[in-house]
């Protein structure tokens, strides 16, 4: 059980991961580390704060070996190598981060050599040329439906849970990235996620809502991330088959339900579950000392279908071939750029 819950085990389960490790090893063998160069990173997220973020993942992770050199809120950040880093000076002189770049533009910039590290969505991942270096974390992002307290009738929530065809979304919209799941914790972390059924049952869903007034069957689904909107649209279509009328809205505030992503914040399942519960407004689960207790706690959280887990998704980055070194992210998706170097020095 402990072995199965190991992040590295989970990452290296798939054939893709094995190929990535092999590619990384080959690259490392082909070049020797050297100092210098700037790593150009593009991300979709935009930080509008006056100062760089210090908590979370991504940019805050750079604080281990880099210091902020330039900050343009919402647009651009430059981190310079910290000569006095505890782990030693990183190979890279600097990391330039461009924010608020759409996934499609990031992919194009990577293709044109304008960026070294970009995020890849399912569509962009599919379009990557063969041999492209890709960093992928373990499935650390939970995508789930979260109902507001306005949706009081549990039959509606359960019907929604039964209506969603996770497999179709996973196969097509997510291009098989990540895992289909009805659990809060991913399989690689808990080991029991498969116990939560994921199959859709539209017929049963219809029986649950039949007879309910139309107003009760009308639900607004808020989704703020434009990239997730196709998933929301598909959920709405599935819900329609179950007799529900789901309208997708770009604003999550005020919606009856929201399509959200929650990051697994810890490799400790109990802590991760507590973090997820807190993020989703669920009651804090009891501290579980055993997998059975953890399972019971998670099951209790999902009782009532206030939250409907859908998928566990990895962080996936496309990497310019000139970037060398070990994968720049951990299985939990943390950035580890201090051991990277770039071929050709300064661009």
């Amino acid at each position, binding site marked *: 059980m402990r072995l199965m819950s190991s992040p590295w085990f989970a990452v290296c389960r798939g054939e893709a991961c094995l190929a990535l490790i092999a590619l990384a090893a080959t690259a490392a063998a082909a070049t020797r580390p050297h100092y210098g160069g700037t790593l150009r990173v593009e991300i979709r997220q935009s930080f509008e704060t006056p100062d760089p973020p210090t908590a979370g993942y991504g940019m805050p992770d750079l604080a281990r070996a880099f210091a902020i050199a330039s900050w343009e809120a919402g647009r651009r950040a430059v981190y310079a190598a910290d000569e006095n880093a505890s782990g030693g000076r990183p190979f890279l002189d600097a990391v330039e981060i461009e924010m608020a770049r759409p996934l499609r533009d990031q992919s194009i910039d990577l293709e044109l050599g304008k960026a070294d590290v970009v995020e890849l969505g399912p569509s962009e991942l599919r379009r990557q040329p063969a041999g492209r270096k890709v960093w992928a974390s373990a499935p650390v992002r939970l995508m789930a439906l979260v109902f507001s307290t306005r949706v009081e009738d549990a039959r509606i929530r359960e019907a929604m849970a039964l209506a969603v*065809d996770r497999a179709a979304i996973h*196969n*097509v919209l997510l291009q*098989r990235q990540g895992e289909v799941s009805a659990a809060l914790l991913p399989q690689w972390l808990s080991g029991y996620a498969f116990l939560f059924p994921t199959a859709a049952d539209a017929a049963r869903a219809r029986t649950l809502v039949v007879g309910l007034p139309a107003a009760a069957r009308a639900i607004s689904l808020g989704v703020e991330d434009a990239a997730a909107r*196709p998933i929301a*649209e598909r959920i*709405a*279509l599935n819900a329609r088959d179950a007799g529900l009328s789901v309208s997708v809205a770009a604003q999550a505030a005020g919606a009856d339900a929201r399509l959200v992503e929650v990051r697994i914040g810890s490799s400790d399942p109990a802590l991760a579950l507590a973090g997820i519960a807190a993020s989703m407004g669920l009651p804090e689960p009891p501290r579980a000392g055993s997998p059975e207790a953890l399972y019971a706690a998670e099951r209790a959280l999902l009782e009532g279908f206030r939250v409907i887990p859908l998928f566990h998704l990895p962080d996936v980055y496309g990497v310019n071939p000139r970037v060398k070194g070990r994968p720049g992210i951990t299985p939990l998706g943390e950035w580890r750029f201090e051991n990277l170097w770039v071929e050709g020095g300064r661009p």
Partner: protein
Amino acid sequence: MTFRTRLLLIFTLAVVASVALVEWLVTDSTRQAFERMETLRANGLVAQFRKEFDERGQRIVRAVDGIAASEAAVNIAISADYSPYYNEAASLASAHGLGLLELVAGDGTIVSSAEWPARFGYKQDWLVEPADWESRGAFLRREELPDGVTLSLAAVGTVSAGGRKLYVAGGQQLDREFLSSLVLPEGMRVLLYRNLEPGFTPAELVGGRAEDVPRVRPLIEQVQQRKRAIARTLGSGSASETFHALPLTGYQEDLLGVLLISSSRRELVELESALRRTGMEVAAAGILVGIALSWWATARVTRPVRRLAESAARVAAGDWGATVDSTSTDEIGQLARAFNRMTHELVAQRERLVQAERVAAWRELARRLAHELKNPLFPLQITVENMQRARERYPEQFDEVFREGAATLLAELANLKQIVARFSDFAKMPAPEMQPVSFNELVSDTLKLFEPQFAQARVRANSALDPRLRPVQADPEQMTRVLRNLILNAIDAMPEGGTLTVRTSALEGGVRLEVSDTGQGLTPEESRRLFTPYYTTKTHGTGLGLAIVQSVVSDHQGRISVESAPGKGTRFRIELG
């Protein structure tokens, strides 16, 4: 109403009726001609629209065929995994100008949907039904979209590669945008009713105005029932439109929509209105000219008739010599000449009649004179002969006889003198000397004078005098004589006694005097000849009394009449003023 007015009215009516009939015929035939032209124009427009519609369908077919023939479609068709292509339909549809596009696997599973991307993996079973999609061309289809149901003009293409099949179902929504993109001729507009719900749903009328809904609803419902094209003119006046309602059927011949092609009748109505206005003006002018001509013609036609009437009136007024000038040879001329002959004949006859009457009067006068004179002459002759015989045979008695004879002679001579005086009076009737006369007093005074004679003749005299009667201009002596003659006449008419009534009545500015008796009455012939001089029904008298009465009344510009019947008495009525 004069003959000319009547004739003018008849002419005017004839002109108005003729002009109205011509105006109606011209307007109606012109309107029908314009209607036929309008129908041809509308049919042409409809044909043009159909061509445009068909062209749109062909364009969609070409677009779909282009997609089906594209490398992308072939790649999808032969792909073992369709999931990477779930978003392909949108880009293909955009590249080929289609609003709707679905790529459907051979088993009917949607690979990619441009109009509803989330619908991948769902089934489109209608596509896998046996059908020759290649030759079908464009057709209408009920299309489900995330926000409802719509109507589309669609075509299906197929891709067969590597033993696999891919359906390419593309099309265009039949919505307001589609309708507005159609190239329409001037004065034409297109409405589309999407027959997607049972019955009539106003919201499904695309391209129309709010006021169109109640107007076209019956038309749409008729098409829904009959499922065939119907043309109707809706509205009135220049706002009227001719609607051609065409049923739009799907590939299974189900009625999916009704296309309403409207052609404005504004130009036609305005043309008809202008034509009607011009016609009215021409008709009004024609009527005026007709009336003027009728006026002239009636004047020309009736002038001889009027002259004839005037001449006839003159004849009636006593001018028997009146004639009519006529030079025409038509019926009016003949009539005029006949009239002239008639008046000449009348004058001649009158002269002959007057002459005859004069002779008759002289004869009557002579007879009366002879009769009147013979009565006194016979006693004169007897007296003279007695005196001669007494002289010869009885001289001793001669003085006695002479005295008696002389007395008789004197008496008879006086009688003769009186007779001669009466005749002289009649011949020398003086002109009346007019002065205000109270007829009530005149009647009362006269009746008093006759009281002894009334008593002797056993006649009861009554008077009924109108107190409102005012003095009337008349000659009192002559009117007294008139009244006396009438009273004497009445006494003579009642030899066995009776009742005499004299009545006065006030007229406006005049008087009515009536003298009636209860005598034996007169025959109609006697009544007719009563006022003829020297005519009398009595054994004594000159026959001049009533003639004098009539002469006096006539001199006073009055009228006298008599009412009588045998056995019922007689009433004389005189009106003056």
